[in-house]
């Protein structure tokens, strides 16, 4: 356990600058967009008030977030792509370059599944660090909004309304429904394990391993996709369908971890 945590620390430490860069990019784009949009709105409101138009209604933080769909989506999509690529790079970076760290990593006096789990944990830490950072950013942005907009123009809104006003948040990043959140992130975690095992198939069997990896991802993808779109409401109660889905996810997870641990312990070639 101790060595597992040390390995997690090592992996997080190695990606820290990239993670901070993603956070900086997210903050920079979102704050710039927020400041600009809020300034335009305040200016428009003042102009309308000067001309005596009383039809302009006050606006809320949620309205501004709703206006910034695209600008808020860009850094989030960039982060998703970077973290998605890092799922592969977290393994391959230890094989490439002059100093192949894989030699050291796989001769550490610890069970090798710790290496596998530490890399997976690091990816989850990065994902949840980005999600937490986004939530913190929303709090900061709301404060910024409150500073910029005079109270007579401002309409109060709930934090959840701000989240719900942006499609990227509500559909992908921060589903407001608790079960949906667990399902989304649960499938995400499962996908990371499937891709890890695919990488290990390639690292163990090299050229034929690429074929095995593609087939493995296809089979797991079909099983997960089939479970997501399972439509047997004529035969089962919704709770039963949920239970079936859960069983399929567990089976894929169990098989993926078993295969992954076996490959990393017995088959991998450095």
């Amino acid at each position, binding site marked *: 356990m101790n060595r597992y945590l040390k390995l997690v620390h090592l992996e997080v430490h*190695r990606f820290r600058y990239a993670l901070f860069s993603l956070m900086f990019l997210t903050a920079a784009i979102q704050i710039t967009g927020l400041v600009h949009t809020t300034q335009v709105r305040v200016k428009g409101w003042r102009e309308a008030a000067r001309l005596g138009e009383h039809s302009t209604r006050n606006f809320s933080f949620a309205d501004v977030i709703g206006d910034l769909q695209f600008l808020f989506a860009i850094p989030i999509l960039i982060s998703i792509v970077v973290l998605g690529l890092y799922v592969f790079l977290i393994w391959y970076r230890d094989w490439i370059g002059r*100093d192949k*760290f894989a030699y050291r990593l796989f001769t550490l*006096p*610890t069970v090798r599944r710790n290496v596998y789990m530490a890399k997976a944990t690091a990816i989850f830490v990065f994902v949840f660090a980005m999600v937490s950072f986004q939530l913190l950013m929303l709090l900061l942005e709301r404060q910024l909004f409150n500073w910029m907009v005079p109270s007579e123009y401002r309409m109060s809104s709930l934090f959840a309304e701000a989240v719900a006003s942006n499609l990227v948040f509500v559909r992908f990043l921060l589903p407001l429904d608790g079960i949906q959140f667990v399902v989304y992130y649960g499938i995400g975690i499962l996908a990371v394990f499937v891709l890890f095992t695919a990488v290990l198939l390639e690292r163990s069997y090299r050229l034929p391993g690429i074929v095995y990896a593609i087939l493995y991802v296809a089979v797991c993808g079909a099983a997960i996709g089939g479970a997501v779109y399972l439509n047997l409401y004529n035969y089962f109660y919704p709770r039963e369908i949920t239970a079936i889905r859960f069983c399929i996810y567990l089976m894929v997870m169990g098989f993926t971890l078993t295969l992954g641990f076996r490959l990393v312990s*017995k088959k*991998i*070639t450095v």
Partner: protein
Amino acid sequence: MIELVRVSQKYTYKEVLKDVTFTAEKGQITCLLGLNGAGKSTILKTIMGLTPIHGGSIRIDGEEINQNTYERVSYIPDHLAIPASMKLSDALRFMEDFYSCWNKDRANELMRFFDLDLDERAGRLSKGTAAKFNLVLGLAQDSDYVIMDEPFAGIDLFNRERIAEVFSSELVGNRGVLLTTHEVKEVEYLIDKAVLLRDGVVARSFECEQVRSEESKSVVDVMKEVLLT
């Protein structure tokens, strides 16, 4: 004792090692010799579990390879296996964190012996300096065996002499050493036992002193005889 019995290994369909059998004893320096592609590095990797074997067995003091093996056998690959961005001081801390057999005093002694700078980053080391630091990482473990892959490759004459000094010093002591090298002439006087490999097969295995006294031949003479005929 490191013991390989009829070890075979395949890479896709090509047999890289065929029925490789030999032992490397504690307190001795055993050298794996052969031409390029003979399978020397592959043997070291199989001992460290870095590539699977497809037949035979490998035992270290009677035990199969497991996680504890890495506390008893230290491995020095032919390159520095730490991230390029890591400072040498961080690399030493990393080793101390993970290996309970890490000997901090010996590590400091070796750092002084090789005159290495703790603040330097691994990626910025010259080949010779990287080789020396690689030896620090391997020899500062209180292990029973040390496995070295080409410790002299690409190293200049003076650094080679410095590295060769280590073999006959207390830093190696009574450990068992298994190494591969192409610079046979320069380490011949240090080697106790030689294992000659040809195309993944052990062509001959012998005690160097015995061959010198009984056949009046050097290791290089035997190599020429076995590998070039």
